[in-house]
Each structure stands twice: as structure tokens, then as C-alpha cells.
């Protein structure tokens, strides 16, 4: 159950990042609501997952899904640059965050 909550939290975070891009394209109250609901829901599910899973690991997986997924969604749906060098540095950041959360 905690694992499902964690994956849902990550997916909602990833959606939240995409909704940031949407907000800049369509400045409507609907975009704001989607953004707040995504991040809000994400935190809610993360806290449920953390009741049973170790905190560092839960954070690492949550951040990994959210940041990597958000970057991919941005590239696919919002035409953000997917130059190889950018992918490399993005990957380096996300891998380091996951590493830091796991060892902390």
C-alpha cells in the first residue's frame, strides 16, 4: 500500500511540474487549480508512504520519479530542449539528489 502511495505521489509531482509549464501557456484559474491539486496531492500521498517506508528512501524515489518525469513531460509536451548535454547534466543532478537522500 505504501509503495502504491509513493508511486502515485511521484506521478502527481511529475504532473505538477508539467502544470507549471501549462500555467505559463494558459494563465487561467483552472491551470492554477491543477497545479495546486497536483503538488498538494503529491505531498499527501508522500506523507502516507512515509508512515511505513524509511524517509530517505521514500524521498529519493519520490524526487526521482517527479524530477525525471517532469523533465520528460516538459520535453515531450512543452517542446523543451532535449539536447544530449542537457540530458546528461539533468541526469547527473537527479542521480546526485537520489544518492544524497539515500545516504542521508
Amino acid at each position: 500500500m505504501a509503495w502504491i502511495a509513493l508511486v502515485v505521489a511521484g506521478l502527481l509531482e511529475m504532473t505538477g511540474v508539467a502544470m507549471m509549464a501549462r500555467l505559463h501557456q494558459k494563465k487561467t484559474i483552472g491551470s492554477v487549480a491543477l497545479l495546486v491539486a497536483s503538488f498538494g496531492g503529491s505531498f499527501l500521498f508522500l506523507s502516507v508512504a512515509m508512515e511505513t517506508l524509511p524517509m530517505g528512501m521514500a524521498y529519493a524515489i519520490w524526487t526521482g520519479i517527479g524530477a525525471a518525469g517532469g523533465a520528460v513531460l516538459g520535453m515531450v509536451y512543452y517542446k523543451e530542449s532535449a539536447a544530449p548535454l542537457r540530458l546528461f547534466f539533468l541526469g547527473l543532478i537527479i542521480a546526485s539528489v537520489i544518492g544524497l537522500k539515500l545516504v542521508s
Partner: protein
Amino acid sequence: MKEWSLLVVAAVFEVMWVIGLKHASTLPEWGLTVVAIIISFGLLIRSGKNLPVGTAYAVFVGLGTVGTVVTDAFLFGQPLGLLQVLFIGLLLVGIIGLKQSTKEENG
């Protein structure tokens, strides 16, 4: 350039609310934590106007994580291991590299 400065400030407020979530116990402390959450996300969203959101978010999370680990070490006396220092170094290399290889759109 301005967008990257916004991200740094957003990350500072992120560190503040992470500390708040961990240590807040009184109503004013919780109030400040909520204010810090609103400011950090506000700045993050603002920086996504001229930066790719995937980039802005990864840098936001990265700087926030470094800030939290460093604050834990210096303010709350948590030990800082060799592996942590290594990951912090890699993370900063990633952020600087990403900044150099990202073009800002002027919206």
C-alpha cells in the same frame, strides 16, 4: 541570469520550510513554514516562465537538497560523510553544467 537567481532564492526558502516541517512546534513556527512554502513555490513557478520547467524543477530540488544536508550538518550537528560531500560536488557540477547549456527564452 535573473531566473537562476530566483531559483537560488526559491531553494533558500525551500530549506526553510523543510526545516520547519521537521522542527516546527508552535503556531507561529508553522505559520512561517507555510509562508516559506508559498514563497518558494511562487519563485519556482516564476522562474519557469523563462526556463524549461523540467530544468527549473531539477535545479530547485537539487539546490534544496544540498541546502538541507548542509544545514543539517552545520546547524543541527548531523555528521557529513565523504559520500555526501561527493554527491554534493556532483550535484553542483550538474547544476552549473545545466545552467551553461540552457538557453533562456525571453518571454
